[in-house]
């Protein structure tokens, strides 16, 4: 692949320019993608310059002078036509092949990678590590191959990290995967890029790249939640289950579902006209069977997923303790 290396070197200057229009390059693949993109931008610029420049030049040069202008009668020119069919074809095949090489790297999963399970759900990502740690953001060690195994609980989502130039759909009913090797420490945006309903544009999370030592420390700390007070454990569950993407806790602002700020113990108006009190049993029922008692003024059917079978009794109690504390 000598020509590839030469081409890459030639394009370094160009891709630096492209860099200001692209997110930071945090992986080796992102640099390769940017080099190819830089080349494509140059090619596009040249072809547009020929077409648009030629068009403007001819339009000005051959502007109509009198109504009786005679024009040349040129029907075709085989040599020219072959030329402008074959040259684009060669360029297209070149970029096709170049893209193929990088795409192949993207799609070939490394062996011995750190595997992390990532599940999409309307509208949050939940991240599972092998030791049982559950998180709502992805934390990975720097300079290590990481493989994300993607799944979805409901509709199709897509896991996209612009700084890594990678993206993969999470499809319900099957597993898909992507891999990366982060070279830069820091926090990177993760977007959902497959339209998934109301809060599609808020299905954001962070991908945090830390040193191996910090990663090990984080993993142990996270798995060691049993010593925490009940309300703090609840707060963690509230965060990792992404309850916060629909329910605000620090203000009465409605995101998707009702705000939980100062809600505890207040009277309750159910959509079917019945009333009640916002208490332990109501919270439990709403988490397990969200369609049962939808609060007045909120969408029916409720977009909230059921957590039946997903939360243990101990977790439920911790969650309720946390919501009590929001008063």
């Amino acid at each position: 692949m000598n020509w590839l290396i030469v081409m890459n070197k030639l394009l370094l200057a160009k891709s630096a320019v492209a860099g200001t229009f692209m997110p930071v390059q945090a992986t080796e693949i992102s640099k390769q993608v940017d080099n190819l993109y830089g080349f494509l931008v140059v090619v596009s610029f040249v072809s547009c310059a020929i077409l648009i420049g030629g068009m403007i030049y001819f339009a000005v040069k051959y502007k109509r002078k009198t109504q009786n202008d005679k024009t040349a009668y040129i029907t075709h020119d085989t040599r020219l036509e072959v030329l402008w069919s074959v040259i684009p074809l060669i360029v297209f095949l070149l970029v096709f092949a170049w893209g193929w090489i990088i795409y192949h790297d993207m799609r070939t999963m490394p062996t011995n990678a750190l595997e992390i399970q990532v599940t999409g759900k309307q509208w949050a990502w939940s991240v599972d590590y092998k030791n049982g740690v559950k998180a709502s953001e992805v934390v990975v060690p720097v300079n290590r191959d990481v493989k994300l195994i993607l799944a979805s609980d409901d509709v199709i989502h897509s896991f996209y990290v612009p700084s890594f130039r990678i993206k993969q759909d999470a499809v319900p009913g099957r597993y898909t995967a992507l891999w990366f090797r982060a070279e830069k420490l820091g926090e990177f945006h993760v977007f959902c890029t497959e339209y998934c309903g109301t809060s599609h544009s808020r299905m954001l999370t962070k991908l945090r790249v830390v040193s191996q030592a910090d990663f090990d420390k984080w993993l142990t700390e996270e798995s060691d939640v049993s010593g925490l007070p009940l309300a703090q454990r609840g707060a963690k569950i509230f965060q990792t289950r992404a309850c916060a993407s629909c329910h605000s806790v620090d203000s009465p602002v409605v995101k998707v579902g009702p705000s939980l700020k100062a809600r505890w113990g207040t009277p309750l108006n159910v959509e079917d006209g019945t009333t009640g009190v916002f208490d332990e049993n109501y919270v439990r029922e709403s988490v397990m069977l969200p369609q049962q008692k939808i609060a007045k003024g909120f969408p029916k059917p409720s977009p909230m997923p059921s957590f039946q079978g997903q939360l243990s009794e101990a977790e439920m109690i911790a969650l309720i303790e946390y919501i009590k504390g929001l008063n």
Partner: protein
Amino acid sequence: MGHVSTGKSYINEEPGLKSWFTSLDHKRIAILYFVAVMTFFLIGGIMALLLRLELFSPNTAGSVMEHIPNFLRKAGDTPADLYNQVMTYHGAMMVFMVIVPGIPAIFGNFFLPLQIGAKDVAFPRLNLLSWYVFMAGAALAVSTFFFSKIDTGWTFYTPYSIRSGTSVVMMVVAAFIMGMSSILTGLNFIVTVHKLRAPGMTMWRMPLFCWAIYSTAIIQVLATPILAITLLLLAMERTFGVGIFDPKLGGDPVLFQHFFWFYSHPAVYIMILPAMGIISELITTYSKKTIFGYTAIAYSSIGIAAVSFFVWGHHLFVSGQSEVAGIVFSFLTMLVGVPTAIKMFNWLATLYKGSIEFRAPLLYALGFLFLFAIGGMTGVILAVTAVDVHFHDTYFVVAHFHYVMVGGTLMAIMGGLFHWFPKIFGKMHSETGAIMSWVFIFIGFNVTFFPQFILGAKGMPRRYFDYIPEYEQLNKISTVGSWLIATGFIIALITVIKGLTSGAKAPKNPWGSKTLEWHAESPPIMHNFEQDPIVTAGPYEYK
């Protein structure tokens, strides 16, 4: 519609509104389509302005959607839901009710018979039926507005479209019905081209617009049934739970994407091929020169139509489709680039040594070349697998297809409108008005959509109601651009209305064009020509 002082024409031969709705004349049916499509374009355009207004700033300061009147919204819809609905209707209406029927049903209907020297299309009654079927589908689509609307995006991806609590079935049935109309129109045009050419009008003497409409008709007839069955399966999945697409019932949601794009990618060429046909007409007329590479352009239309059936998988590079499939589709997509490049260079070569007159239609044609060059090259960028992984479903894609479909198709529609206006209505429009509309639309278009390429490269996903602060500036520029485009279309509307009410009588052939329609009266009589034309030469004999 006004009246013509001397002689009869298709406009005044039969009086009364009823005669319009029962007319079998291809020209009158074209006008029916024109009024309907432009109305939908207006609605879809207002929605586009709403979307851009929402994206003017991040959502922290409140949402524009809160101002949507109550009778148009369902209780409990959040601003984000309303945005998603507006986004869906903008896409669905612009695709199924404006761009797909646009050129074939309006200009194709009006000028295909005229350009080949025929009295009408092959099946006039079927032609009228097509309009009624189209209107029935469109009415059903618009009526979902007043029910629970739809929020699936125009692509109806499963399983979201199975779970969404909105009128998906109604909308899908509407698209199915409009598809039926598209098939009937396509069939009519194919038979018309084969059976009704005037004596001496061989296939290779047909104007390139006819070739484009012909190629389009083939795609319409072959591809639309696939969309129809796909949408029907989706409706069945929602109503009966047959388990084809729903993973909960053992179905495969990605299968829907394959089916959908197997139609919808060729449909992209249903949208652009007729536009290319118009461009050939405009460039030859306003440079007073024969087309360069007639056969190459005609064959490349057919070539694009053929290859377009085998590229759908480039919409699925990150869907979980196999690597091999990705590579094959990337390769085949590159092949579509070649006939497209051929056309671009042929138009450029046609300008060479011409006598170029700067009228509005020519400006629209040059605008088309400009925007389509950018749209086409960014299409090549997106066809490169590794690069598409980054750009897929970002604003880069949004910018790309607007450059191709709006920059391409809409520029051609506007160019065609001002080119054929005297022929269709028998009145002259204001040249200044037409040129001013071009200035605003062309500049506004670039201001709106060019920043979206950069937004996409920076990673902003499409179909986002809200975005992170670093995308704000480019979104602001884009929104300002949308106001310029709107201004351009308002100017165009005023120009058309003024032309209709107070335009001078149009001569037979105001632009010195050579194709057959310019031998008919302006506006043409009921059966097009006083005497059946006999053709002895090609369409662009500017000697």
